[in-house]
């Protein structure tokens, strides 16, 4: 299975129109809230108003016909745990409260308005206990340590030792479609339809909570209005809640969140604190790094161990370090659990290392681009994890092109520090797929079936959530099968029907699952042995082939020492950011962001640009205006009126250029794309703002109020 050159390809590399695009532009696409369910009840969740303590009593007051309501509490849950990595999180509070907005009770009624009223008529009395809200104060949730080389000696003998502290804030996903599920039982079998990224995560969670067998649970994905990680683990809770109400009511139940509930109760990006110390020579050759990385995990384990892992495994940047000491800790607090958000810990640690590199360059009196150039990692070099870089990163080429496209040299010379105009850069990488042995544990499977019309149907649990999954998989399958892309369809993910191709996360869909789609299609092609699919189908009925993930030989990871090949491939990128700061309002405006990007083979240019531009916009928001105001762990500004995300009017000019360097194990050479663009803008923006106003900020979001001080 060699990579064919792009010239020979018919569909890969072409901007094939989005498969489900017509449904989306005509308003016909069915999101969960668009589904009609005659006879269904409307559900609502009663949530804790305190961050830590005990529930003393619950009373149902007011003029509410309570006997008409379905009411569910912890006693109604067969196994009161949300199964994920650990199973510490209860489905509903059982007396103890560990964070604000923790679900306590569920109620449902056929009159949606009455449900709202009823919710307000319930009074909970608590016995409050003091909570923990700062990183470093509570119990340690997870810790990793990685050491390489004699870092103590390097620091002791270093010509220059430089250190800094860097912070990043929480971030709310603001997918424009809120969370929602509709649950319906048929005897002992449960079917849920909903908005989510990972059907098999929901499947597993339902199975455990209701003590069911695999075949008793069916999870169907509706068109999903954005996820960005926010619909990775959180939907499991929503689905269980809907199913609990439906079971007790013996009726279908709709549990669809409004915006305020969604923003207050759902997961956010983990806030972080990094302390970085580096040793280098006077002329900027890096010798050692000491990276201490701390994140707030919130009240339950959820996905925090893996977020922490990805964070520390990206903390050393695309540089060569003879020695390293990396230490990562995640803490429990009494915040709602923090969760997956595009980049998954990497944007946090990359913010720190990149802000540090620029600060170090200033300290050494060097151009930040030149300091980086001196230290880029190359093929054959070892990362602090011991991973030998087997591909050609070509950071120099990516940087040269980004500097050229942005006219960096001239602008850096012409715009004096403090002039109100600033320019900054960042250079970074992002690992494709699950960390370490993760892909091996997932053992993803992909199916492909022939269809009556002479085409093929791709069956995967990987979801379309805006990135274009249906389209790129159709392109990959069509290419490998040698049929027209219009003849490849995509089966709506439904756990009863599609094999488990793993979760739609970790920039793994196009590259890793796509490779499985390619292999399944190649296997099907072999089986068909040149026969016309339509004829074959007429004669033999549906033909179905399935393949399973096999790790690349030599890809070894040790979970105990945290050493080895953390990722099969990395995507690489360079950002240059130009900002203007308004002298009166102090409002910074990112006016241009240039990004050169190596994500391997581009399967679909329009979709790939869309991923990179959209990720960059989210990162600009995270850095400049998205300020999650935490009060006792809760996002206080949980409305779109007071949590501001970028609008069309403040959209930056985003210039993207792809410089593909194909990955032998990715689908037709593709590497991960979704998360990479989230990593670089933050530190480049802060550097540009520091340059523009002659400041030394080391955190994001960097709000205008702070700049006026």
């Amino acid at each position, binding site marked *: 299975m060699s990579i064919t050159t792009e010239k020979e390809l018919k569909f890969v590399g072409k901007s094939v129109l989005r498969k489900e*695009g017509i449904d*989306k*532009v*005509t308003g016909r696409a069915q999101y969960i*809230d668009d589904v009609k369910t005659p006879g269904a009840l409307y559900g609502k969740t009663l949530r804790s108003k305190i961050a830590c303590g005990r529930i003393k009593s619950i009373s149902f007051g007011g003029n509410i016909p309570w006997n008409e309501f379905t009411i569910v509490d912890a006693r109604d849950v067969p196994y009161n745990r949300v199964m994920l990595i650990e199973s510490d999180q209860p489905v509903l509070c059982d007396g103890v409260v560990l964070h604000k907005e923790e679900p306590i009770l569920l109620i449902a009624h056929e009159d949606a308005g009455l449900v709202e009223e009823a919710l307000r008529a319930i009074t909970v009395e608590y016995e409050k206990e003091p909570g923990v809200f700062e990183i470093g104060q509570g119990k340690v949730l997870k810790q990793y340590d990685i050491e390489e080389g004699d870092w103590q000696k390097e620091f002791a003998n270093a010509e220059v030792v430089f250190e800094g502290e860097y912070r990043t804030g929480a971030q709310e996903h603001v*997918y*424009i479609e809120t969370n929602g599920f509709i649950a319906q039982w048929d005897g002992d079998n449960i079917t849920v339809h909903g908005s989510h990224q990972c059907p098999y995560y929901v499947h597993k969670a339902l199975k455990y909570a209701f003590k069911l067998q695999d075949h008793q649970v069916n999870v169907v994905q509706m068109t999903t209005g*954005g996820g960005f990680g926010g619909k990775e683990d959180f939907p499991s809770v929503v689905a269980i809640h809907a199913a609990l109400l439906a079971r007790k009511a013996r009726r279908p139940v709709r549990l669809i969140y409004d915006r305020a509930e969604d923003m207050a109760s759902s997961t956010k990006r983990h806030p972080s604190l990094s302390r970085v110390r580096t040793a280098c020579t006077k002329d900027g050759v890096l010798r050692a790094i000491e990276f201490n990385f701390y994140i707030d995990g919130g009240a339950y384990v959820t996905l925090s161990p893996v977020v922490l892992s990805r964070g520390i495994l990206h903390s050393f940047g695309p540089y060569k370090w003879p020695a390293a000491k990396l230490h990562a800790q995640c803490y429990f607090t009494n915040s709602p659990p923090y969760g997956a958000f595009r980049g998954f810990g990497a944007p946090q640690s990359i913010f720190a290392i990149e802000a540090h590199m620029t600060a170090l360059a200033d300290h050494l009196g060097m151009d930040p681009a030149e300091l980086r150039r001196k230290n880029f990692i190359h093929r054959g070099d070892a990362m602090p994890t011991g991973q030998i870089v087997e591909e050609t990163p070509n950071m120099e080429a990516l940087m040269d092109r980004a500097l050229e496209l942005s006219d960096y040299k001239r602008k850096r010379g012409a715009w004096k520090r403090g002039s109100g105009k600033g320019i900054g850069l960042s250079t970074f990488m992002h690992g494709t797929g699950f960390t370490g042995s993760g892909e091996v544990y997932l053992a993803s499977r992909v199916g492909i079936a022939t269809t009556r019309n002479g085409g093929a149907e791709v069956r995967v649990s990987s979801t379309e959530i*805006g990135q274009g999954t249906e389209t790129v998989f159709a392109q990959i399958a069509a290419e490998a099968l040698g049929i027209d892309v219009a003849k490849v369809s995509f089966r709506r993910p439904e756990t009863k029907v599609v094999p488990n191709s793993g979760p739609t996360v970790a920039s793994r869909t196009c590259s890793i699952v796509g490779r499985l789609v390619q292999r399944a299609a190649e296997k099907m092609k072999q089986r068909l042995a040149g026969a016309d699919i339509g004829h074959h189908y007429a004669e033999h009925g549906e033909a179905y082939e399935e393949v399973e993930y096999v790790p690349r030989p030599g890809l070894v990871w040790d979970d105990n020492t945290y050493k080895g090949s953390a990722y099969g491939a990395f995507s690489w990128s360079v950002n240059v950011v130009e900002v203007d700061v308004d002298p009166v309002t102090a409002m910074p405006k990112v006016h241009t962001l240039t990004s050169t990007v190596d994500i391997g083979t581009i399967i679909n240019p329009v979709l790939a640009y869309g991923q990179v531009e959209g990720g960059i916009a989210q990162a600009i928001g995270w850095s400049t205006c998205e300020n999650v105001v935490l009060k006792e762990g809760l996002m206080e500004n949980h409305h779109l009126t007071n949590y501001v995300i970028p609008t*069309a009017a403040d959209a930056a000019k985003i210039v993207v250029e792809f410089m593909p360097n194909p990955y032998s194990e990715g689908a037709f050479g593709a590497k991960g794309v979704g998360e990479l663009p989230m990593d670089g803008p933050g530190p480049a923006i802060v550097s540009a703002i520091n340059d523009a106003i002659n400041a030394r900020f080391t955190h994001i979001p960097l709000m205008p109020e702070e700049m006026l001080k």
Partner: protein
Amino acid sequence: MKQSISFTLNGKSVTIEAHPMQPLLYALRDDADAVGTKYGCGEGECGACTVILNDELVMSCLVPAVQAEGARVETIEGLADANELHAVQQAFLESGGAQCGICTPGMIMAGVHHLRHPERAPGGVPEALEGNLCRCTGYTRIFTAMKRAKEILSANGTAP
């Protein structure tokens, strides 16, 4: 108390029974069976619920249903005819202006309204679409789509 409200929805007369103060968004979605218009916030901030009411662009989550009485309401469902997408829809499809698609109905309605009345947004497309949040695209491809829509319209010689 519910009351009858009659209006033209995408050129067809409809009469619904709805509470007069209920937002038009829910009247459309629940009572007129037009679920193409989306809920995103219910507070006038996201624009997912954008529709055209008597030639004005409104956020239907903020407009009481009774205001539709006797009015002409246009929603995403009314743009395409049986075989052909509206130029703005076609342009969004080609240019990558829709990703997850949840902002798209509202965004496209705002785009159509802007092409009909460019003078109302002196700042051009970014200003015209300022009230419509998109979390997926970063707006770049939406701007491209709006340019493309203009091209399609002038090539076809049709009005938006």
